[in-house]
């Protein structure tokens, strides 16, 4: 009945995005795609809504059930991705994200879940836009 890992001091960046998450929520409209990965029952579930127009990420939102790192990273990605090319890749690769947010190594898998959700959302956005323009 205690929790040693809760006790790790989260990095300042993690705390900032965990305590004041930007872009929580959903998106609708042209060029929006949705991707998700993980499961609540497994402790991490992430969903992104991404809008890709003219090959550029124009907006992104997230919904997340997960630890502070998951919430912080998901939030940061939605912010960092805006204006970048709408290709199925994180705005920063997983190893760099891990360093940026000072994730303990045993949480690496959670970043992969985030990556899966993000890439799925981008792909869906591109597919949706294609379908809408067809």
């Amino acid at each position, binding site marked *: *009945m*205690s929790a040693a*890992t*809760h006790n790790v001091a989260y990095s300042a960046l993690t705390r900032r995005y965990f305590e004041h998450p930007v872009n*929580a929520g959903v998106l609708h409209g042209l060029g929006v795609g949705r991707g998700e990965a993980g499961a609540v029952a497994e402790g991490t579930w992430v969903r992104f809504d991404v809008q890709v127009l003219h090959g550029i990420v124009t907006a992104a939102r997230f919904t997340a059930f997960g630890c502070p790192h998951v919430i912080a990273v998901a939030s940061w990605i939605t912010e960092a991705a805006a204006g970048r090319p709408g290709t199925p890749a994180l705005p920063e690769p997983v190893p760099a994200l891990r360093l940026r947010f000072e994730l*303990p190594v*045993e949480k690496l898998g959670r970043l992969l879940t985030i990556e899966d959700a993000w890439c799925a959302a981008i792909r869906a956005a591109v597919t949706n836009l294609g379908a809408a323009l067809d």
Partner: protein
Amino acid sequence: MSARLPVYLDYAASTPLDARVARRMNAVLTDADAFGNASSAHAYGARARELVEAARAQVAAAVGCEPAEVIFCSCATEADNLAILGVAEYYRERGRHVVTSRTEHKAVLDACRELGRRGWQVSFVTPSSGGYVEPAAVVAALRADTVLATFMHVNNETGVVNDIAGIAAVCRERGVPLHVDAAQSVGKLPLDLAASGAALASLAGHKAYGPKGVGALVLRRSAGLQLAPQSYGGGQERGLRSGTLATHQIVGMGEAFALAARECEADRVRIAALAARLSERLLALGGVLRNGDAARAVPHILNLSFEGMEGESLLAAIVDRVALSTGSACTSAKAEPSYVLRALGRSASLAESSLRFSLGRFTTEAEVDTAAAAVAEAVLRLRAVSGYPWVAAGQAETVGAAGP
């Protein structure tokens, strides 16, 4: 309590030392006559012995046993180990089976598991979903070769109280001695070991406003039991617990138990009102489930699971404002949801997103209100992020096994 620190609602993990106990202990620590080794033949030894024996009488009076039945040791963990391994080893030729429950403290569970490694068989009774052990379930687990049953009095995670007299009755019928882990009982509800029918009971100083690092095992004479000691040396405490007696620690435990016995009822009434206030505010958030049967629980422990958020985030969101324990015990890299809540049928996810609020003698209404506000704020923020309630948003399927 310093202004800077969060509200302390973790009395079940450890209580502050009562100032009256601290004064008594400090008096012993600084008494130029009381520092002797209680085993020594001279006046300094005699003075230490007197203090120890007075404390033994206080402990005995507080829990309803004879002073000669109290064996001082260093913690409840040691008392649990001495009771379980001590009885099992002593009666190893009589049988090699012990009975316990899935919701015991690690000190009991791991002692039983150790017996398992040594070739004993251990039956783990599953408690009801309300968190208490049914005497009928104990009956079903007892065997002809059972040498010990061990069940806790007050569960440390849920506060649920077992019917010790009922369990003792079925054990006695089968001639099986009952050990009771009563580490969480003293000061929380009346404890009368003589009336309980238990043969052995474990006690802790620091769960009842006494010092950490002292506990006791009560070995009821009427049980006619022998124990195999679990450490070897000077033969203190009638050969059952070797090592120089820690006079000031024992004095502190005695004083704390005397206070607990005297103030138990007044504390209980006051704390029950505070706990009801806290519980009401938090249940009003919706999607909050109480763990353990409230009707069977001591009032000062309130264990709640919060839907719509992950456990580590829940704790991280409140840890600066409220100090309490959660339902995930992260001893290693991977957080493990509370085995106690799992045994009550909670999903891993709801077991993890649980908070154990435990109130105590020094909890104030203002603290309860601060805590309730902090938790409510965190719950709303995290639910905004997770999109809870998922069902209302039509996302139950997407999220998978989201509901409880």
